[in-house]
């Protein structure tokens, strides 16, 4: 069977769960593919490994393809498994009373996973949409892990863009945790971006996709099957399939976070063209280079494989 090396930008993130689950369920094998999964600290490291040629496919956020298109690196996504980005703008428990809307963030310290990351762009987009200047809040890189939680709890940052399971952990601890924007839900996502917004996706160099159509199809098949499996099983069943080192000690929290996240997973792996446009808009606002580059957004994704996979 052909082998594909899959680089994943933080397998622990629930947003990437379908990728791991597919392996656990044997979906790749079933599709006739050996997948070699390599975990990275973040999406950009995973992407860099693909550009360097040490991995074939990235499982990561779609928005990188847009950013890279501006840098003359042609990447193409071929299956989307998150239809919402899952980014949540949370207010620090210490500031719950003082910050009630995005407008209140002006002049505050807001944590993002890293400056220049998707979380950063998301914040800037929200700020501009609220009528503020894009740099009206000071951005602090805090990662997505314990650092972010510690900083939030101690009030060292006033708000942060977070992902699950961190959000759920905070919600469990602080019942009245204020959330300013929650793109784990369809409602907020549509309200924010005007449609579904693609999160996690499989993408690769365009040249790879064109020369490895068979493998790309197999991956898409495996993913679409996994998505169908997810939506036909309970969170408990899903959790039981996940490798124990990813679930960790605290099963209750995991389950809660998973339950919060399930609606976020796509049902068919298809890209919503409106969503792709939204990504371009977000990044054009955040990064002048992207705006200058006049990216043709339709070059960065294809629904060809997902369509076939759904027909099966």
């Amino acid at each position, binding site marked *: 069977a052909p082998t594909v090396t899959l680089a994943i930008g933080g397998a622990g993130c629930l947003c990437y769960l379908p990728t791991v689950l597919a392996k656990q369920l044997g979906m790749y094998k079933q599709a006739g593919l050996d997948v070699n999964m390599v975990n990275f600290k973040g999406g950009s490291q995973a992407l860099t490994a693909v550009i360097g040629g040490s991995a074939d496919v990235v499982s990561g956020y779609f928005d990188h393809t847009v950013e890279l298109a501006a840098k003359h690196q042609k990447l193409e996504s071929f299956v989307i498994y998150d239809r919402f980005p899952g980014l949540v703008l949370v207010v620090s428990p210490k500031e719950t009373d003082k910050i009630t809307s995005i407008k209140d963030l002006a002049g505050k310290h807001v944590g993002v996973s890293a400056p220049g990351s998707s979380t950063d762009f998301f914040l800037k987009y929200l700020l501009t949409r609220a009528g503020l200047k894009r740099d009206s809040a000071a951005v602090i890189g805090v990662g997505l892990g*314990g650092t972010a939680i510690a900083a939030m709890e101690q009030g060292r940052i006033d708000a942060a863009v977070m992902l699950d399971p961190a959000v759920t952990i905070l919600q469990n601890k602080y019942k009245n945790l204020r959330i300013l924007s929650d793109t784990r839900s369809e409602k907020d996502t549509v309200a924010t971006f005007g449609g579904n917004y693609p999160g996690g996706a499989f993408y690769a160099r365009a040249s790879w996709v064109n020369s490895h159509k068979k493998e790309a199809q197999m991956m898409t098949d495996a993913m679409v099957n996994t998505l169908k499996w997810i939506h036909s099983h309970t969170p408990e069943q899903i959790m039981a399939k996940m490798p124990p080192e990813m679930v960790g000690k605290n099963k209750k929290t995991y389950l809660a976070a998973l339950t919060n996240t399930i609606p976020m997973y796509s049902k068919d792996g298809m890209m919503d063209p409106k969503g792709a446009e939204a990504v371009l808009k977000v990044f054009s606002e955040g990064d002048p280079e992207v705006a200058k580059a006049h990216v043709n957004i339709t070059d960065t994704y294809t629904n060809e494989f997902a369509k076939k996979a759904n027909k099966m």
Partner: protein
Amino acid sequence: MNRMNRALLIVLQVGVAVFLVLAWQIATTTHLVGNPQDLAFFFSTPGDVAAQIWTWFATGSIWYNLWITLEESILSFLIGAFAALVLGFWFARKPRLGAVFDPYIKGANAMPRVVLAPIFTLWFGLGIWSKVALGFTLVFFIVFFNVVQGVREADKTILSNARMLGMNERQLLRHVYLPSALSWVFSSLHTSIGFAVVGAVVGEYLGSAAGLGYLIQQAEGMFDVAGVFAGMFVLAAFVIAIDYGVTLIERRLLVWRPQLHGGS
């Protein structure tokens, strides 16, 4: 050190461990230090960590990851130390060459290795070698600077004598510089063993498919602090074991040194 002393020493060492674990237990289960739940979130509890370690070893799932990490650590330690020895001796013996490259080596030592991880992936792929490269960049500099200094410290009279005995540069290296730099080298090896492991783990942490760093990152991603700490303790235990091996070699190689007079 006699038998009695050795027994006492081990008792004291275990005593320290017991004390630390107790303090940890108290901090994470009582309100003496702070909110135990908060503390447990960041530090886990001794019981959880022990349980995690137990599970790993009982199911045997740890061995593969541990083996990967140790392999990377030992390779980066050996390659790094060897390269540092060779280059260190070479530079120390060719002071002009050394002077020319000196600023570059010092500058290179200030490179944040974490940032270089993508480049290592580019060059060495996703397997163990990119981690070995990261570990190498830590080990190399620690050993290198000590070797250079160790060579400089060689006794001037012994050196003159050796040269008068007709030694050429190679022989000087083998019979004078190497033995006299040996205690410097060993000192740096004690430091660099730890850093080799750190390099391997950080390499895995930044991108890998197996190893303790991988386990730690998984655990961290899920806010499973017990897993993080369990991984670190397992690591530390193995480093202590390797270090003990180095100490044994050191004792063998340095038999010739005088012991301090008694009466201290």
